[in-house]
């Protein structure tokens, strides 16, 4: 009986310790990559707030599992360990508490940007043009190869 109980405790502890910690995507868009390398194949797109299960840390990279059970790598700069520190977009989240809404309204956010729009001192249309000139990861990979970069 005693042996069974201790075995049960031991197994429970091992199971708990092996269970992955949660990570949350803190950037607007990121990729779940096949290898710990930005130029490797993308397995899935990740958007802000997505929950990932941490399996292993490899230098600046995390091996994670997404909600569909897909395993891949994400750079540590793209994720955060606590969802509570994600801010700003909270007002548009369903079920945000009054306190969350109040906190989010008191920072540098989209709401305050809207109040600046239209003023002569700010050209947000030009900023949006700049942000639209992105280059896809495949083009960057080809550029790196052609230029004998690393």
């Amino acid at each position, binding site marked *: 009986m*005693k042996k069974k*109980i201790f075995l049960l405790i031991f197994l429970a502890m091992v199971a708990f310790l092996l269970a992955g910690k949660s990570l949350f995507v803190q950037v607007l868009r990121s990729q779940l990559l096949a290898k710990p390398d930005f130029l490797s194949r993308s397995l899935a797109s990740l958007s802000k707030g997505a929950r990932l299960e941490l399996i292993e840390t490899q230098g600046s990279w995390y091996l994670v599992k997404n909600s569909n059970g897909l395993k891949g790598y994400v750079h540590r*700069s793209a994720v955060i360990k606590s969802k*509570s520190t994600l801010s700003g977009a909270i007002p548009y989240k369903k079920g945000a508490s009054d306190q969350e809404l109040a906190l989010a309204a008191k920072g*540098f956010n989209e709401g305050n*940007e809207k109040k600046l729009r239209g003023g002569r001192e700010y050209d947000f249309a030009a900023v949006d043009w700049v*942000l639209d000139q992105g280059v896809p990861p495949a*083009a960057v990979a080809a*550029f790196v190869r052609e230029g004998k970069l690393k």
Partner: protein
Amino acid sequence: MKKLPQQSWIRALDSKFKICSKELTNFRICYKALMLLVCLCLLMAAWKSPINLSKLNKAKKAADLVAGTTHKISEEEEYYIGRAVAANILSQYRLWKNIALSRYLNLIGKALVLKSVRPEIFGGYHFALLDSAEANALSAPGGIIFLSRGIVEMAENEDELAAILAHEIQHIVSKDPLKAIKSQRLKSLGAFAAGEALGSSNEVLGIFKNSVLDITGTLLQKGYSRGQEKNADLGALKLLAATGYNPYALLSILKKCQAIEKKKAKAFSAHPSASNRMNYVRDALKRVSASDMRIRCIRFKKSVPR
């Protein structure tokens, strides 16, 4: 009913008591083990729980405010303040909408960013051109980097363009633009956010506007400190080497800046003198090796109008 002799009655009772005692001991062990398991699970759950972390964060925030701590700018807030800074810069300088050159600049910039210590930021890095003859480069918070037409024309090859971009990327990595915001503004914002002080939406908007002006003032006039510039230069050398660009390109672009400075043209008004920067860059270059940049010259000539 047959009466047991006294001795055998005592013996029977004793053996029954022993059985009970054994069961009781087993029950106690079971109970203790179960309680231990429950406590362990509760402790682990509490340790892992994001709710608990959030409570701890809030408690820390409250404690920090008592000590007069500032509002900590999140990645997303950095993005929004960066958009406003960029919008302010673009209200003063005309955007050069050269799509092919913008793409080329973005490819160089993205190749560098992937090797930086902060490759992923909220809205990603973006590189744009300003239609200005001044030789200048600016980095808004949140990853929007501007290069003037003047500085692009000054660069003679891709590696020199990469050197300018690497320097600006390092400012973003170190969050230098955010450090230009006056601490008092962030203290007030922190107090409003925690409910320590009442801040109307106009007051918060005022802090937002003034923070933008603090940053644009530093980018366009005041400039970063010598220490920040030195860190950006030294970080740029490492970034260039890590990406496969020739780190000596930073020295060659600084030489060009020095030549312009001698002519007393309005160049790098927000940077310390080029000759001062060249001294420590030369010293740092002793520890890195040059790379062959000829292969990248063809695409540079194709992409950069002369």
